[in-house]
């Protein structure tokens, strides 16, 4: 509210929009939706992007830096553990880190995806 009211043009926020919190998905615990409309109401400029797409991220950052009418919010839609089969089948994983074997497996899967 303050940032929007004071038109803090040098403020850029990237929101990791992954619907994940410790006890489960946000839509079962405490959803913040509709986040875009809420932030727009308090005078933030909002852009929604695919948080896994580097081109979109860079593009949105340029937009945010150039935007001079107030603070900018980039809502980056992401999937927790994208590209790692084991993590994707879990319903959530905000507070849990993979163990050593899982991390190695994840790296292998991600490298394969990168090569294909």
């Amino acid at each position: 509210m303050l940032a929007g009211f004071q038109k803090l043009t040098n403020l850029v926020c990237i929101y990791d929009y992954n619907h994940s919190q410790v006890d489960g998905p946000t839509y079962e615990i405490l959803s913040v939706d509709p986040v875009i409309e809420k932030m727009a109401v308090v005078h933030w400029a909002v852009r929604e992007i695919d948080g896994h797409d580097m081109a979109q991220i860079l593009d949105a950052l340029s937009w945010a830096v150039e935007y001079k009418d107030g603070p900018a919010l980039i809502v980056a839609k992401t999937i927790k553990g994208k590209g790692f089969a084991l993590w994707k089948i879990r319903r959530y994983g905000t507070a849990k880190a993979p163990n050593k074997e899982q991390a190695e497996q994840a790296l292998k899967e991600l490298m394969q995806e990168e090569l294909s």
Partner: protein
Amino acid sequence: MNDRPKMMQRVAFGDALLELGESHPNMVVLDADISSSLYTSQFARKFPERHINFGVAEQNMVIGAAGLATTGLITLACTYAYFCYPARLRADIAALCSMAKLNVKIVLLPWRHRGGLGWTTHQATEDVAIMRAMPNMTVVVPADAVATAALIRQVVDHIGPLYFRMGRNPHP
């Protein structure tokens, strides 16, 4: 040497809640997004109509607990001790629970520093002193899992605001 099995206080707490849920139909358990860590998730599964998860919103949870307590319910608001530090939340505990003598039980778990900066954010060192300074507040600090199971039964039957602070690590 000492080879007695070790048990975490929160495991004993979670098990005791299941029994207390049966014997105390007016008991409700409130959480702030860490029910799996506090073992209150068992209560949530067994008595979903008497469990409310407020999400990462501890202040909201304590205000909600005070509101529910005015209707005659025994309310247990559960989170990590450190999250009771913020001044606004502390003010809510003082004004709504301790001064108003509402029947709110605040159940806390302190995280201990385990190395790495991340854990210092969850380390509670002043909470007992803060709570002891509040009017009408009873502070209960069980020593181990056996004491936790025994004391939590007295805690829910105690009338008035109470701060129940468990330890983190398993004890014999």
